[in-house]
């Protein structure tokens, strides 16, 4: 019973972190691809997207199997450290946005800016290099974050298959919904999702850094939920304190 509870809490946190992280990155990539497709034509946008997916698949094929051979304590320490830094960066950004110290991530504005940038680039030839590069960069950079999240979380938890499946579901789901609603991606509560992902990444980062350094957590995997709760309270406190003590500043769009 206890083992079942600890396994399920670890799985719940893993699934939540991977799904939300992939969904957020997919929203960002999709915004760029839609802007490129609408402005410069779909052919080069799709070619750039396909090329980025091929390169990402190659990275997964090259590094995925190799990670399995790294000793688990070393892997967990390195992954824990990376997730701790990565998660704190996400959480910091989400806290600053929620408290009004940083502008919200506005997909509509990013869409408009991307379209303006592409229109300023002039006429479009049959094979559009600018559109290709823009779509490639957007999908590759956002996709790389997905790959790193899935590989690190999946291998450290010995659930790479589950992490990959959840990531694929998130990518397809956001892709389908995004295409259907087209330019309404700004309705996605991105900052809230980023905050949850940040909390889960810092929780995992803390947990695995400890495991890598031979810390014996009370309750084993169940400790993940305690850590997530602790970081949630911390986040809420930081946002509340900052809202009270800070003037609303930045007005530019954050990318």
């Amino acid at each position, binding site marked *: 019973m206890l083992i079942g509870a600890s396994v399920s809490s670890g799985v719940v946190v893993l699934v939540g972190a991977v799904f939300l992280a992939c969904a957020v990155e997919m929203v960002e990539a999709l915004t760029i691809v839609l802007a490129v497709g609408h402005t410069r034509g779909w052919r080069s946008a799709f070619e750039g997207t396909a090329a980025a997916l091929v390169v990402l698949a190659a990275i997964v094929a090259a590094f995925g199997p190799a990670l399995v051979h790294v000793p688990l304590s070393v892997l967990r320490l390195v992954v824990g450290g990376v997730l701790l830094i990565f998660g704190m960066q996400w959480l*910091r950004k989400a*806290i*600053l946005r929620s408290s009004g110290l940083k502008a919200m991530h506005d997909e509509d504005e990013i869409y408009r800016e991307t379209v303006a940038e592409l229109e300023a680039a002039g006429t479009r030839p049959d094979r559009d290099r600018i559109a290709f590069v823009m779509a490639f960069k957007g999908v590759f950079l956002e996709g790389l974050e997905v790959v790193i999240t899935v590989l690190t979380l999946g291998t450290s938890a010995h659930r790479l298959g589950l992490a990959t499946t959840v990531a694929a579901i998130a990518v397809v789901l956001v892709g389908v919904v995004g295409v259907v609603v087209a330019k309404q991606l700004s309705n996605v509560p991105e900052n809230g999702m980023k905050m949850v992902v940040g909390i889960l990444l810092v929780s995992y980062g803390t947990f695995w850094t400890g495991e890598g350094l031979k810390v014996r957590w009370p309750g084993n995997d169940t400790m993940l939920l305690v850590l997530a709760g602790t970081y949630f309270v911390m986040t809420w406190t930081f946002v509340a304190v900052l809202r009270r003590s800070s003037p609303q500043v930045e007005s530019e769009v954050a990318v």
Partner: protein
Amino acid sequence: MNKEQPLVVRLVKGFGMFWWDFLVGDTPELFFSALLIIGVIALLSEAGHHNGAAVVALPLLAVLALGISVRRAQRSARRK
């Protein structure tokens, strides 16, 4: 990046730049805090065998690091 450099050098530089941006970027305090946290916990857990202290100190130091970074951002926003 200098296009006259050999492809291998450019790729290695690009790889290094990516990880630098990814891990350090505009929040070096979080990067160095994480290194410090790892060092402190290694001392407590592996060298000192103080497991209880390590369990408490690890999340506490992470909260402290984030607090310092957020405070730094708040000060920087006030100056603008």
